[in-house]
């Protein structure tokens, strides 16, 4: 009976999870149907745009993960400490709401915010010596800009998740800490943050996997800045160019496969070692 109930999903899982992966593997190791070993990978690695793209994504990931971990944990702790219920609820909701603008719309909104001529925070941009949009989106600033955009849309969701996890810490433990005279900082350091560790690593791994996939942000900024942001800034953009500009599906599949291996590796590591899904 289990088969009947799960068959529809099973078919979709095969069609859009397993098959595309197998097909990407097939394309990555062949050329016009003939097996070519690692030729496609060699070509991709040899491409002058490949290593800069790896470097861009890596720098972005470092900046993003550090900021995300630091601020999400801090904000979750602070919001959790607010005792007035409606204030705490409203703050969480306001932090969460930019999540509604994932995708192209958030990047578009940030185009306005990053353009000193219309930005409501133009004074901040100018204080940093940024007088024009082109200056703001210069390649050196991009890791920070993408971090700000990703943090703006995504952090609220994680803050809410961390808040939920903090609520799961039993009152007895918190009470005991308070009776022992632990202030908020010691409670956070010795009780709350260790209890959050699993969730922090979950957030880190998920964000790492998602961050390697960087596409919409550089794509839209590249379109808007007329190439100041290069069209081959990230790895996914490069894979896209291989398929759509050069008609080279094999090269595109090779890049996608590298990214997919990273994502599957991280996911599998977490499923088998992370302990968050030990229900079964």
């Amino acid at each position, binding site marked *: 009976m289990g088969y009947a109930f799960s068959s529809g999903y099973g078919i979709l899982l095969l069609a859009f999870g397993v098959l595309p992966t197998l097909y990407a593997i097939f394309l990555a190791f062949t050329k016009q149907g003939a097996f070519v070993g690692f030729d496609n990978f060699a070509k991709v690695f040899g491409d002058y745009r490949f290593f800069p793209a790896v470097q861009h994504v890596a720098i972005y990931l470092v900046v993003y993960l550090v900021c995300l971990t630091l601020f999400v944990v801090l904000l979750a702790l602070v919001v959790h400490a607010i005792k007035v219920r409606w204030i705490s609820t409203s703050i969480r909701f306001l932090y969460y709401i930019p999540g509604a603008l994932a995708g192209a719309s958030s990047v578009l909104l940030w185009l*306005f*915010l990053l353009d000193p001529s219309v930005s409501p925070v133009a004074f901040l941009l100018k204080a940093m010596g940024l007088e024009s949009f082109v200056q703001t989106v210069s390649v050196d600033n991009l890791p920070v800009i993408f971090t700000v955009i990703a943090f703006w849309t995504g952090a609220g969701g994680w803050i809410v998740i961390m808040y939920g996890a903090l609520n799961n810490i039993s009152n007895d433990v918190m009470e005991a800490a308070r009776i022992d005279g632990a202030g908020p900082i010691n409670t956070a350091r010795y009780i709350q943050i260790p209890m959050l560790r699993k969730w922090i690593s979950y957030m880190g791994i998920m964000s790492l996997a998602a961050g390697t996939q960087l596409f919409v942000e550089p794509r839209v900024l590249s379109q808007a*800045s007329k190439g100041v942001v290069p069209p081959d800034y990230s790895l996914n953009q490069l894979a896209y160019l291989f398929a759509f500009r050069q008609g080279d599906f094999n090269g595109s599949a090779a890049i*996608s496969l590298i990214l997919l291996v990273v994502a*599957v590796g991280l996911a599998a590591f977490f499923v088998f070692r992370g302990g968050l*899904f030990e229900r079964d």
Partner: protein
Amino acid sequence: MSATNLTETPEVTAVRDKDISPGRWLGRALAFSVTGLFLVFFALPIVWLLLAPTKTARELLLNNPFSFGAFSTLADNWNQLTGFQNGIIFTWLGNSAFYTGAALIIALVVTIPAGYALAMTDFKLRRPLLILTLIVMLIPNTALVLPIFLELSAVKLIGSPLAVILPFSFFPFGVYLTYIYFSTAVSKDLLDAARIDGAGELRVFWKIAMPLATPVIALVGFFNLTGNWNNYFLPFVTEPGRKSPVQVGLAELLSNVPLFNPTSAGSVTIDLPVLALATLISIAPVLIIFLFSQRFLVTGMTAGGTKE
């Protein structure tokens, strides 16, 4: 600063807000400013976005960024937006509604029974299916976009509505949520009791399990719909031109803004407030769903779902 508190006697619990130590007062002030600062960071861009479409391009550049323009200007901007390529914005919105709506229905029809089967029945492939679901669920969905594109183009489905609807309906996270829900909130005994009374498997699922699953159906529907509405990469590669959903159309609109794209001058141009209006309209459905789901969004319910 509160390290000193460790040496204090247990009477510290009796301390009330009135006589808190200067250290703790400083801590509170700090916490207050951090919360406030981030509140501004998260909320202000949205406030700005709500006000921008009420202004003319000139007012947007010169007036106070948080001033309100005029309703008549809003109407002008609306006319300019709907006039762009004979109201293509409605086509884009219609496409988005069609793709996400159809995907939502298929997703619910296949996801809920699958989660139910994984939680409440036993079959040989159950464990492999569960592990595969967990892994695929944790892969960012962008990772599969180009492989899916390559696959769909091999079977000549690019440009067909199915090229987004079917991938959108594939929702392992929803299966996982349903699985967790059934295995924690519904007892197998209850289902067995119905079976002893002579109900068939379909009847047990439909009459007993489904009514109990309303909360998780809402949850799965919410995540599926909002995620798909905002998805950019997949429809960007599989639905070109007039078949684009609004997220892809929005980026298209951007190419017609002279400020960001000087080469477009001369052709039909889009003013900045019009672009802001388009951005607002493109996210309006999701924003409204968010407002109505406010209560459950902030409880950390998804966290509770995986609580061990």
